[in-house]
């Protein structure tokens, strides 16, 4: 009898903890981890820019994208690929220089009319 009570108590405690954890996870809401997500599109910076301007970018927004190109400009933790997209990396320290070719995976944020660039954030290098 005593043993049963104990088992019951442990089960209740375990269940309660699980609920608390679930509730917490739901309320705090984990952020997406773009680098671990499967990319929905894989294309060149040029292509992304062209598609965006031709048909609007709705289908790209908030999607995980792999984009490739050559670095034409660098600023802080960001690079510009082929003067068409701005990529902001998650990590600051990056050993990159102008002229490097690379493919990145990141989240497409939207289109910047002022600079005429497609913006991508939370990026990591894939090659």
């Amino acid at each position, binding site marked *: 009898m005593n043993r049963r009570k104990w088992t019951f108590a442990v089960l209740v405690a375990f269940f309660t903890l699980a609920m608390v954890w679930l509730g917490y996870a739901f*309320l*705090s*809401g984990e952020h*997406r981890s773009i680098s671990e997500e499967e990319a929905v599109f894989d294309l060149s910076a040029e292509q992304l820019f062209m598609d965006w301007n031709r048909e609007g970018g709705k289908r790209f927004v908030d999607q995980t994208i792999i984009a490739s190109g050559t670095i034409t400009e660098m600023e802080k933790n960001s690079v510009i690929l082929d003067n068409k997209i701005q990529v902001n990396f998650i990590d600051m320290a990056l050993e990159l220089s102008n002229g490097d070719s690379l493919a990145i995976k990141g989240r497409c*944020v*939207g*289109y*910047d009319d002022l600079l005429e660039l497609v*913006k991508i*954030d939370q990026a990591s290098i894939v090659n």
Partner: protein
Amino acid sequence: MPKQMLKGVLGFVLVFLGLIGVNAQEKYIDKNGIIIFEASEKLFEEVKATNETVTTIFDAQTNDIASLALVKAFRFKNALMQEHFNENYAESDSYPKAIFKGKLVDFKLEELQTESSKVNLKGKLAFHGKDKEIETIVTVQRAGDKLAILGDFIVTPADFDIKIPKIVRNKIAKEVQVKIDFKLAKK
């Protein structure tokens, strides 16, 4: 006579070159500017978001300044709050950007020394399909080819026709403080 003509041509060329020179060095750009907004209430969870990829272009010839923030680039600590912000308040699928267009009033870049100076910033902020006049004092500092602009101003959700549901009304401040931190480089 030829000498005079030569002088005239030379003068013309010089003026022309001068114009090109002036035009070529008047734009200042920041691609990674920071905007933070906060509407936290004491005792409740922080309502605060940061956007670190704000674009700003300043034209030193006209004092025109334009700033663009993609709404989806605002990051909250709490992902769920971020989702609610995008879906229910900012409606970022329909209104993907916040754009400010204005002027640094009576600002003279050439007279600006290395110490910071207070400048009146005036313009219009477009967000969530609504326009709001903004007037605030910003701090402008110059260091070589760099120009730093720092400041803040207050807006309200009602300014942009954003309705806060009753159930969360006491958790979100009536006034939203917006901070800007731009570091522009001469292009």
